[in-house]
């Protein structure tokens, strides 16, 4: 008997000996199968329009890609890069390590504004070769398109004064430049041919700068400054400034009145 006297041990023993009935294995299998099947929920039926999923998704992607492409093409160009001496531009110029790298580096556009070039000569001569690549600059002596001219003038005008100052500085630093050029002609040649590798953050800004470089030329103020030096009789200083200018704009055709500074006319023997 248990605690509440609900059992008689003798009767329980006799009953246990007699009661041996068990469910059949087939019955067990049916019940267990039903129990397991109850746990497996039937997969939800796919809606009727499910077969349209793939075409609709493909169409949506195509429309989106087309829209983005059109937006990209028609998007207004980013405002030109504002460059000042106080805030250096976010461009990183790196000199190629050897000549073998020149070809690969030349493929990359060299980005530098004229104002930078005006400021940069002494530094460039010391630590890096010339910032432009001939093939990329594509300087044309013809005046650029009016729109490009206006755009360039906008950018160059605020930098005109720094350019003049740079020319004055170039006059003071001229010995350094010439010394560097004489000491390492290899570096000088490198400076003429090797492009600068510019890391630019924005693709639109990159396009804008590339366009600028294709129409780059020295400003009138720079040329006038050299003329002024020449007129004042400071021929050496004018020559140094002109050489610096030529390094920056190797494809620029110098005005005739300034050519004699670099290539003095051969003295003609007096006529007999």
């Amino acid at each position, binding site marked *: 008997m*248990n*605690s*509440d006297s*609900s*059992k*008689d041990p*003798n*009767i*329980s023993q*006799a*009953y*246990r*000996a*007699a*009661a041996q*009935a*068990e*469910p*059949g294995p087939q*019955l*067990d299998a*049916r*019940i*267990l199968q*039903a*129990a*397991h099947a*109850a*746990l497996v929920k039937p997969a939800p039926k796919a809606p009727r329009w499910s077969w349209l999923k793939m075409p609709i998704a493909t169409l949506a992607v195509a429309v989106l890609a087309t829209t983005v492409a059109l937006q990209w093409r028609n998007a207004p160009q980013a405002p030109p890069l504002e460059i000042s001496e106080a805030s250096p531009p976010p461009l990183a110029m790196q000199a190629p390590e050897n000549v073998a790298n020149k070809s690969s580096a030349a493929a990359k556009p060299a980005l530098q504004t004229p104002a930078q070039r005006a400021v940069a000569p002494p530094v460039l001569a010391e630590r890096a070769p010339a910032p432009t690549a001939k093939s990329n600059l594509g300087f044309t002596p013809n005046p650029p398109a009016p729109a490009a001219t206006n755009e360039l003038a906008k950018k160059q005008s605020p930098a005109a004064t720094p350019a003049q100052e740079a020319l004055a500085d170039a006059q003071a630093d001229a010995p350094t430049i010439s010394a560097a050029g004489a000491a390492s002609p290899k570096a000088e040649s490198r400076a003429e041919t090797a492009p600068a590798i510019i890391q630019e953050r924005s693709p639109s800004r990159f396009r804008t700068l590339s366009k600028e470089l294709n129409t780059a030329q020295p400003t009138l103020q720079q040329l006038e400054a050299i003329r002024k030096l020449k007129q004042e009789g400071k021929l050496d200083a004018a020559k140094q400034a002109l050489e610096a200018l030529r390094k920056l704009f190797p494809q620029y055709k110098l005005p005739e009145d300034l050519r004699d500074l670099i290539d003095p006319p051969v003295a003609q023997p007096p006529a007999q």
Partner: protein
Amino acid sequence: MLAYRDGDAQAFDLLYSRNRGKLYRYLAHQVPHCADELFQDIWMRVIGARDGYSVTAKFSTWLFRIAHNRLMDHYRAQGRSIIVFTDAQDDVAPGLDTPASAAAQPDALLARKDLAQQILAALAELPAAQREVFLLAEEGGLSLEEIGVATGVGKETAKSRLRYALDRLRRTLENAE
């Protein structure tokens, strides 16, 4: 059962293996011809009640309550009076409402020397309510309170039914010896 409710099929296998024999014998000694059918039906109800299962009592109590209800439905479907389950029948003389068949009459059973068979025969002679209480106590291992919960009666009623059942079975054993 909670594990099975949460998706553990192995938990049901264990639960079934523990209770299959008990429940089957509970049914086989009361409705021997329909034991398989009711057995399967009861387990299907257990499976169907899986989602809404919450712990209110021992699983065996819950299981045998389902079995009891299913058995009542079966008796109703068979047209048997459920008066045999009322408390008023508990104190009547044993045998007046015995559902045992003619083959299970005491004379025929006593003629057999097998004690086990005599016990089973005596069990078959018991009134249905007393037999059920005895089976719930023996097979289900339920206490008097749990038997009361499973059968929907009070503890004292269950105790009274069980006492009558045990007395009658005891007499059967004494006669056999």
